[in-house]
């Protein structure tokens, strides 16, 4: 499977999806006006990946901001990951948030309560 590699932009995050290594990473800002269009390739990629996932999938979300339009698409990604988890494959989700950013921590907790895979919450010190 081809990896997804996208550099970040002022409104979109950097993306690294690697099937061989089982690494899924989204970092930065996700505030595009049309989030569905942006996330479609990732949702499709996970669909294919879920048929033959790595022994362990490590998911790193390190978002600075995301808009509500992205929040639905991110939930779609998590639901695909939940399906992999249900097949007894290991899925580790790391949710990074900046020190004092309680909104981002809460956003992670909201997702965790919806999809039922335990999240590891990782606080980052401000640079």
């Amino acid at each position, binding site marked *: 499977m081809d990896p997804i590699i996208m550099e970040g932009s002022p409104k979109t995050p950097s993306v690294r999806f690697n099937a061989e290594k089982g690494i899924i990473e989204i970092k930065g800002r996700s505030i595009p*006006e049309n989030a569905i269009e942006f996330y479609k390739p990732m949702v499709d990629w996970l669909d294919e990946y879920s048929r033959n996932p790595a022994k362990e999938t490590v998911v790193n979300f390190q978002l600075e901001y995301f808009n509500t*339009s992205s*929040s639905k698409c991110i939930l779609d990604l998590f639901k695909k990951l939940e399906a992999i988890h249900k097949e007894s494959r290991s899925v580790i989700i790391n949710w990074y948030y900046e020190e004092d950013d309680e909104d981002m921590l809460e956003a992670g907790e909201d997702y965790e309560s919806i999809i039922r895979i335990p999240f590891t919450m990782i606080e980052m010190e401000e640079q």
Partner: protein
Amino acid sequence: MAFNIQQSYSKMNEGEVLLAYKGSINTDLITNVLDVVESKLEDARSVSSVKKKVYSVLVESLQNLYHHIEDLPGDMKEQFDTRFGILVVSRMDDLYRISTGNFVRSSKVKHLKEKIDKINSLTRDELKDMYKFVLNYQKITDKGGGGLGLIDIAKKTGNKLEYSFQKYNNDYYFFNLNIYVTEPSE
């Protein structure tokens, strides 16, 4: 009292104005506004969590405008830019105000008013539950909004949404929304 756009705009421009804009709301404008406000916030004295809230709420309110702005009829088009909207970000004492204005069809006023009143009536925990419910069960609309924008704004700011509808003509009202982000008291 007849609706006067200039009067509304002046009223929105109270306090220390970080940015004021009236005209067409498009994606480039949103990018520029976010850029300008972000650099102004960097210089502001507020704590970083407040700056983040202001930025995040600004993104949401601008994109709400972007997704919901109405096409105006011919006689109004002569007076206003296409996709006309107003945005003012200002600071007063211990709070930031994000004020938006746009025309809405008379037929949509009741629904929008009920939605805001409902959001304003909820406690923080109820808002959190509503957010999660809508996130999980409601499909994204054709307009691209998820129906989450106002809920998210109310949840993040912890303040009531202040609004008014002023009649412009039989078909349109001018909708003004004021969002407040307060500095935490020490």
